[in-house]
């Protein structure tokens, strides 16, 4: 899960408040246009596609997010969203210090692989002091250490059909009528291959705490926090995400947030 202040309970409460506000508001029409898949909203969302294309077109593929100095780390990384996954399988892994953890990478790859934490931490690592920007507006600077995703992709060798990288997570973020919603996210291959895109297992010189996504979380430094899935369980290379979850490419995306979060 990313760094969103909206916990499930608050999200539901706000959704209920928003619902009642819609009923009493004189702006009914406008509020209704806000429903996901409403044609007015779809038209306005095309602005995000324009932002995505233009940023990809104008900015270099490997333009680096600013990296800060140690002196800029002035506080612990603010945890957000799910900070203690309720899931039993996660609990049993955590109880063992994640020794039983395996990261499976599959989907549209020539060589599916599985990595334990010891292997991941023995691979070449990258540390970066970056600013985490939450979609809500706040920012926090911290040092992240992890394995560049591109190194793992080189080993599994994505096929020519692969266009996106899907991250499935351990944490249940919402209990719906039809079952549990687990966090998931997708990014394109340009961000997946970006030098600062890492699967982090370390934070501010120590191991990654549970509240920040232990044992492994994604860092995508040119996008907002909700793209950076925590508690990563598995990675899949895919050609499209329309048939996954709500079809919009991520847990928050399915709830109306833009898939491209570079703005």
């Amino acid at each position: 899960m990313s760094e969103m202040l909206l916990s499930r309970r608050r999200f539901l409460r706000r959704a209920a408040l928003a619902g009642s506000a819609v009923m009493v508001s004189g702006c009914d029409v406008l509020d209704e246009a806000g429903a996901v898949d409403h044609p007015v909203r779809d038209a306005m969302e095309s602005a995000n596609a324009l932002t995505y294309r233009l940023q990809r077109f104008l900015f270099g593929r490997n333009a680096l997010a600013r990296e800060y100095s140690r002196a800029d780390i002035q506080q612990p990384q603010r945890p957000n969203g799910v900070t203690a996954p309720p899931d039993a399988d996660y609990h049993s892994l955590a109880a063992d210090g994640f020794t039983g953890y395996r990261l499976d990478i599959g989907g549209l790859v020539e060589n599916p692989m599985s990595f334990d934490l010891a292997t991941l931490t023995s691979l070449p690592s990258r540390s970066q002091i970056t600013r985490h920007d939450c979609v809500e507006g706040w920012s926090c600077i911290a040092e992240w250490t992890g394995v560049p995703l591109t190194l793992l992709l080189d080993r599994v060798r994505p096929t020519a059909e692969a266009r996106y990288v899907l991250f499935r997570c351990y944490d249940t973020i919402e209990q719906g009528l039809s079952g549990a919603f687990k966090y998931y996210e997708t990014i394109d291959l340009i961000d997946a291959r970006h030098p600062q895109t890492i699967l982090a297992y370390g934070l501010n010189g120590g191991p990654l705490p549970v509240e920040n996504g232990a044992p492994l979380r994604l860092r995508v430094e040119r996008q907002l926090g909700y793209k950076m899935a925590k508690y990563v369980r598995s990675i899949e290379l895919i050609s499209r995400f329309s048939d996954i979850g709500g079809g919009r490419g991520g847990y928050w995306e399915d709830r109306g947030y833009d898939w491209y979060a570079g703005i």
Partner: protein
Amino acid sequence: MDAAPFNSIARRKLPPKQLIYRHEIWTRVTHWIWAVCLFFLLLSGLQIFNAHPVLYSGDQSGFGFDNTVFEIGSDSQNEVTGGYTEILGLRFNTSGYLGFSDGRARAFPSWATIPSGQNLAFGRVVHFFFAWLLVATLAAWFAASVLNRHLQRDLIPTAADFKALPQDIHDHLRLRFHHGRRYSVLQKLTYGGVLFVLLPLMIVTGLAMSPGVNAAVPWLTEVLGGRQTARTLHFLTMLALVGFFAIHMAMILAAGPFNELRSIITGWYRTDTSEEDHV
């Protein structure tokens, strides 16, 4: 190109009752598109602000230290919840408007946000759609205004304008307006300030908050004092634009709303008899 085409149009179309063709189609259409854009940008912006109604200085938000410059919040005392607004550490009770309204904790009240309920996701969709529309319209306006000389003729103040500044301030304070074809120097400075200072500052501080732009143009955020300072400046520029809107409305009411509205809708404007020679 010189000012002749416009003047000849104005003279040719000048009907007997001192009605002149004051605003060209580009000026009128872009004006109204901006009005719509800024309305939606303001209300969706307040929606976005509500998701984290605190402003800071510097690169990051102080959770473990204090760099807060502005905050809207709510607190409970003796089981009564109230809203407050804190500016540079000074706290004001703003219950009913800011921090607490309609019986619930909320930074800006629901009547001031789009959508009315808490919905950051849709607020962002609305905001970025109208941001693009505003930028596109500004670009079109700028190109048209250079080509039809609206910029040089009507907006850039001349030496004579500055000489007339004290008199113009004096006249405005007494609500004595001259209805000529030309803008007064205060109008030139105000419209110029909105179009060449406030709106560009709004766009630049907005871009400085984008993590994608940050990676490509890191100096932009740095010259603005960091991402959180950029966010604060974005908010302050919004306040300046709201202030402009209030004065703009007041001036139109004072100067004669029918004539002013007609000129920005149809282009035709009735000038003072005494100003005929200016036409």
